């Protein structure tokens, strides 16, 4: 089932809260913008993950928590944490 922008933001917020062990209400949405990502892993491939090399339209979700900025990337198929403590995660 295709993921909408709102659902993607909600999933990202919940994932960040879980990783930081805080309440989702303590995560602030700074911005959500349309973006073209370089591949089908949204430029956020996990280790040992190959992805189709097609430009993929999606959303860049910028969140803030505990005074730090965090980036998530999403499209209709997936949501990914981008370089969370140096690593990418597909959630």
């Amino acid at each position: 089932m295709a993921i909408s922008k709102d659902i993607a933001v909600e999933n990202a917020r919940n994932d960040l809260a879980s990783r930081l062990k805080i309440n989702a209400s303590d995560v602030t949405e700074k911005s959500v913008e349309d973006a073209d990502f370089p591949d089908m892993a949204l430029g956020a491939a996990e280790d040992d993950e190959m992805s189709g090399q097609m430009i993929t339209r999606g959303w860049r979700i910028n969140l803030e928590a505990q005074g730090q900025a965090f980036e998530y990337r999403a499209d209709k198929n997936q949501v990914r944490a981008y370089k969370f403590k140096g690593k990418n995660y597909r959630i």
Partner: protein
Amino acid sequence: MNRNNIFIHIALAIVLILVAAFAGQLSRWRKQWKSQMRIVPVEEKKKAMTVEDISLSETQSFGAPEILVKFKNGISQDAIDRLTAQRHDRVEDRFENAEGWDAIDDLDNADAATLVKEYQQLPEVEYAEPNYEINLDEATAGPLVPILPHDPQFNDQWALANSGQRGGTKGADISATTAWAKTTGSDEVVVAVLDTGVDYNHEDLTENMWRRPEKMEPYYDKELGTIDDEFGFNAIDTTADPMDDNGHGTHCAGIIGAEGENDLGIAGVNWKVQIMPLKFMNASGSGSTKDAIEAINYVIERKKAGVNVRIISASWGSTQKSRALGDVIRKAYENDILFVAAAGNSTVDNDRTPHYPSSYDSPNVISVAALDRNDALASFSNWGVKSVAIAAPGVDILSTWLDNQYEEKSGTSMATPVVSGVAALVLAEHPHMTVDELKKKLLTSVDPVAALKGKTVTAGRINATKALAD
């Protein structure tokens, strides 16, 4: 008449006879010289062909038309005759089966590239291209009549025939229409599309899908057991069903071999071919190294079992290097299988930041960069003067999508199957060509592109017509 006058008349007659004889010999010498000029230099040029001088292989012989021009609808033949005469050119031939196309001979023997540029700038002209000489046999050499398929969306396929549509540059394409004068592909050639699978029921693909031959045993693997691979292979769940649940693999398959001249959708680089679908990437378009290896292993085993699979098209990658993946790609080489791979979309130099599998040092790997419709390196494309071999159209490429749809997509993913498709065309014409010969053929028959100088090994765009030249 006195005696002196008789001697004068006899002397004059002898002089006239000698002049006539000398003129006749001159004419024979001239014809002989023309004939030599037509054959010898081209053959010598072919023997010494390098990447730098490939562009000179267009027809340059005396009397042969230098270029083929398609005039816009409504331009009368009288107007065309006037237009050519003003340039000291002439219409050498008009093609009844290719409406609007004329073969133009420049009486000053200007080079084809200059003429193409000149004609492309005329408002009356839709499209101009060099008259490629494919056959060196003088008796059969002649202009290639471009073949335009009736697939309804063909006019949007700028990669195959760039007429300048939507702000593009006329001629910045792979010269497919003149290549099709020689071959439109063969259902004897099998191309493995290693991807998200392929929608093998798509209206424009179904006739060109590989089916396991009836006499061939189902696939057997010691660990996986027996798999009834009627349509191909799914390495994710190790089943026989490679149905696409993303669209990416279906798009790549259409570029290689959407059925041509079937009055549906688009035309592939090959109108006839067999596409073997392999699924190792999921519905999001990602997959694991292990599943990629499993799928390549399947291709090799099918080759050993007698399937004429000669090309693996790999529109995927990452910066992670796997020795195991590199080894299985080399194994494919040992089984005479070409491996065409996307250079990647991160706008980086692959010489410094390698992208795999395109950066594996295996002789069968061709790494492909993407060009836009104006022959510029695509804004996203990786490059590498040592590691990226060739470029192909990869921006706004129209092809097949899920549910009998057609969509435009961009990426080195889209450039890769263009090269795989041209490789399949070459194999249709030269089925016994080895993978080394095939790779050399593709890389030495490019159109030089200024934007690629210092960016790729060949500094050129793939050209199907030149790749098919003997």
